[in-house]
């Protein structure tokens, strides 16, 4: 299949591993799904400390389940990416460990306090879920299948985040103040979740032409702001003055871009942001430390079935 045919046929769940897809498509899809999978893993890494630090037994269970789900989403997404035949899961996880794998901006900022957790669990996950819902009609069928299951599970995450936000904002004055402070700090990052406006996004054009990407960042940002600004206000959060956001007559939003720190954003995009590097390296150390187990399993498997072919060839 050549690129022109791909563009012509591009529709929801149109292509699967049995189609001979041009390399350009397979690479673009791999890049996109790998980014998504990496983000699940790094999101899980970011929230993990709060399994231990959650202040009640039920919340601890919920955090454990949420982190588990994220690892499960990573599993589904790496499988969807592997099925493109470009990279194996091990290669993608190694790239993530070595700082070559890219992932969402918000997951480069470590969290120090429990009051920060709804910034991820409610707002960032809410933003992500919006995007993921549109990806159920992506053109790479295994990716769409993964999205079916991810969206099925993700509802719990956003509700869990909302419940914690509610609990904090109806808690002591101290809790409310700490939560507002966390919100002030996280809000610009959350807005940047959707990236710069379309003109600046290099990969968007091709990815939407071949049906991988279903909605533009601007549309997603608008949808997100429409739903989540009222929610934030409902819980008593004050929307920070910056970045300045205004609503157009057609219901879209204008975000004043110079109010946002794009230098930091692009430093993050290169995996060069210092606190984010700490996150990447922390996970790398954990991954390296259990290499011996994977080796042991591999030789067990080889004893049983003989040494297998590279696993991306499916």
């Amino acid at each position, binding site marked *: 299949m050549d690129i022109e045919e791909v563009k012509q046929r591009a529709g929801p769940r149109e292509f699967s591993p*049995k189609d001979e897809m041009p390399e350009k498509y397979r690479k673009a899809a791999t890049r996109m799904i790998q980014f998504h999978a990496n983000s699940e893993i790094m999101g899980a890494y970011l929230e993990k400390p709060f399994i231990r630090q959650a202040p009640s037994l039920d919340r601890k269970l919920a955090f454990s389940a949420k982190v588990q789900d994220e690892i*499960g989403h990573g*599993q589904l997404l790496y499988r969807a990416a592997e099925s493109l035949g470009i990279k194996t899961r091990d290669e993608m996880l190694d790239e993530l460990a070595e700082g070559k794998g890219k992932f969402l901006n918000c997951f480069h900022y470590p969290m120090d306090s429990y009051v920060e957790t709804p910034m991820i669990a409610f707002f960032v996950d809410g933003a992500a879920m919006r995007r993921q819902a549109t990806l159920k009609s992506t053109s790479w069928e295994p990716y769409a*299948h993964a999205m079916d299951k991810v969206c099925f599970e993700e509802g719990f995450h956003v509700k869990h985040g909302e419940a914690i936000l509610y609990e904090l904002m109806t808690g002591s004055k101290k809790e409310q103040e700490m939560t507002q402070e966390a919100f002030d700090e996280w809000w610009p990052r959350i807005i940047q979740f959707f990236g710069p406006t379309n003109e600046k996004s290099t990969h968007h054009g091709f990815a939407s032409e071949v049906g991988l990407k279903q909605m533009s960042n601007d549309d997603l940002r608008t949808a997100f702001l429409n739903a989540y600004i009222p929610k934030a206000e409902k819980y008593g959060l004050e929307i920070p003055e910056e970045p300045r956001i205004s609503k157009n007559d057609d219901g879209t939003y204008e975000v004043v871009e110079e109010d946002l720190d794009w230098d930091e954003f692009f430093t993050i995009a290169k995996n060069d942001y210092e606190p984010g590097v700490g996150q990447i390296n922390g996970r790398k150390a954990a991954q390296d430390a259990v290499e011996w187990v994977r080796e042991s399993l591999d030789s*067990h*498997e080889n004893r*049983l*079935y003989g040494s297998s072919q590279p*696993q991306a060839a*499916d």
Partner: protein
Amino acid sequence: MIWEVFRQEKSGDYHKHCGNVHAPDREMALLFAEVQHGRRKPTNSLWVTPQKEIGEVDTEDAAFGGTTDKSYRWAMTYNFEAAASEVEESESEQASAERERKAQIEGGS
């Protein structure tokens, strides 16, 4: 290696494909599948099978049900009032299967 996973929601249902897992052998594949694919969705039973053992034939390689007139296979071809409710039911299932099949052939070409 990769194991394909099939889930049966309740006893008596078919096992339907629901995903896959990396695992070094069948026992571990079952243990892993149980958590990854059976922890929320209703599950009565799971199957796992090595991915490389799965064979496939699809519309590119096969003309499922043939391309020439085979209406003799269908109840709708026979113009009698159904003798009993189970005959009627079978006919209506066949009618909708045929509609879907035709739609698929027309849509696919």
